[in-house]
């Protein structure tokens, strides 16, 4: 200690200048922090300024002082990644597709492709033309990802890019995907697509922050799939395809609440009762994948089958 003191006394001039510099620096730093705080607090308490009307959560118009409003910035990519991986607690998303109502309007397909930056030939949900054996009637079947509870696709991913969340959704992270396409091979429902070329409007989406719950921007050389519009579910809205349907084909809801809501009519019904009353089924149950998408049989048709003027699928195949 002593030696240090003497040393300091000896180099008084030098050390004072250094100390002064440090002091000044500290003061300046504190000043900025304090100043910012004061400005911030002024900002928060400045009242009597402009008041504006906002739509409250319960649908009522509220008058709020402008200074009380805070702009919520866009979520960062890191935030979207962590939230996208964990999912929404307490929810188990479920979809019911009523085949008796589908008339191949393809509004779901269009809404989906628009939202997920897909080309017209890329499908997260596709409407297929179906026919069974013999004299059965053909029908249309929308086929999204089944969001299986025992998904074969996540089992084969070597880099943990595709994963299942606690709310039942199976998502894929395009930032992590290496494009090996094992998952495409593993999926028994052919629900996944591969970006062989640059995605639609690649230039336009170039600077957009990647959202794992939306798969936008899409990346060339990676796999993409139906996400049940996880970004909308976070805002408590129904998926793009569900609300776009004009014919009431889709029911969507939370299995934990035992309720599904129709995307067209907005009618809410008991989920288990709907399945029971209509003899619902799942696709390829024998594989044990436990799909989260249920189908109601194609009975009590709202519209007769018609495609390009033909009412029979078989004739079309034979010609």
């Amino acid at each position, binding site marked *: 200690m002593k030696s240090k003191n003497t040393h300091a006394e000896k180099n008084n001039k030098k050390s004072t200048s250094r100390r002064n510099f440090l002091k000044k620096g500290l003061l300046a730093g504190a000043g900025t922090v304090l100043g910012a705080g004061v400005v911030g607090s002024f900002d928060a308490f400045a009242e009597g300024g402009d008041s504006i009307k906002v739509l409250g959560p319960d649908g009522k118009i509220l008058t709020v002082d402008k200074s009380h409003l805070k702009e919520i910035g866009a979520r960062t990519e890191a935030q979207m990644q962590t939230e996208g991986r964990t999912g929404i607690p*307490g929810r188990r998303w479920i979809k019911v597709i009523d085949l008796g109502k589908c008339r191949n309007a393809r509004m779901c397909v269009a809404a989906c492709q628009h939202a997920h930056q897909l080309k017209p030939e890329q499908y997260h949900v596709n409407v297929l033309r179906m026919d069974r054996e013999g004299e059965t009637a053909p029908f249309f079947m929308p086929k999204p990802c089944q969001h299986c509870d025992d998904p074969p696709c996540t089992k084969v991913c070597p880099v943990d890019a595709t994963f299942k969340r606690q709310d039942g959704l199976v998502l894929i992270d395009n930032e992590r995907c290496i494009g090996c396409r094992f998952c495409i091979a593993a999926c028994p429902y052919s629900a996944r697509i591969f970006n062989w070329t640059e995605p639609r409007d690649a230039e336009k989406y170039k600077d957009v922050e990647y959202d794992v719950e939306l798969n936008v921007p899409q990346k060339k050389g990676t796999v993409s799939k139906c996400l049940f519009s996880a970004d909308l579910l976070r805002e408590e809205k129904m998926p793009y395809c569900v609300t776009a349907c004009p014919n009431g084909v889709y029911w969507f809801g939370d299995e934990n609440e035992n309720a599904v*809501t129709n995307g067209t009519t907005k009618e809410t019904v008991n989920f288990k009762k709907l399945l029971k009353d209509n003899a619902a089924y799942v696709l390829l149950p024998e594989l044990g994948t436990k799909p989260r998408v249920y189908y109601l049989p194609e009975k009590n048709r709202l519209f007769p089958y018609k495609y390009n003027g033909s009412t029979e699928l078989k004739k079309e195949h034979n010609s």
Partner: protein
Amino acid sequence: MKHILKPRKTTFIFILLILSFSVNAQWNIPDYAKNTKLPTEPTYKLTETGKQLFIKNCIQCHGLPGEGKNNTAINAPDLGTADYQSKHNAGQFYYQFNEGMGFMPSFKDKLNKDDKWSITFYVKSFDKGFKITGEKIKAENCVIDFKTEDSARTLIATANIIDKNGISKPAEGVEINFFVKRIFGNLPIGETVITDQNGTAVFKFPDNIPGDENGKIKIIAKFKDSDAYGTAMKSAELNWGTHLHFVNPVLERTLWGPNNRVPLWLLLSFLIVTGSVWLTIFYVVFQITQIKKAGK
């Protein structure tokens, strides 16, 4: 195929023709029916009662008047159309409805006279020329409320009408529906309840409605007929729902989970297989070194 279908179709149409012919032919309403004197003044209150009775007795075939949901296969007309109303006055309608014919049952012994007349007034209220007196219930004047009885899980709903002087009086015969709030909409629960003369209705809450972790649930009461009584609603948060036991499946050791959640049997068998291969290799190398040593 065609030669079988054709005669079938024609016979079907033929039967339909006969049926409709016979059904239409037998409605001969006597002339006196037209001049039947109304037993009471038609009032809005009576039409309301009539509506409830109509829903119970007539809606299956005729649908609500003016909605076009009538069963055309048995020639049940939509009673709200201008065409029907112009051809049948109150007396004629009462006669048809009292006597019955073909598919239309006779209500002679099924309902009492007052009820039959209130149904008649309700149906005739769709005729613009038909005069109804009394106070009409205005949708904006109706209020709904409910209180809860926790011990019996019962909801007691009350419907009131506020008159011009601001005095509220109980609304009788109003249908109230209960809903629970779900993420994308309101789920109707149980049967519709109808208020008594005190304007109250008792609703037994079902015990299998899922709530959140604490069983919390948002219950909403609304008027069934929002055209007449308005969209007034009352909601309350109760913990009458079943408790949610959410098990996060991602935290379990599953085959489909991430690498750090691999099932133990898989991890063990992997370690045993790879371990034994490496051990064998090490053993062979060790033996070779031993041979070398022995040779020295």
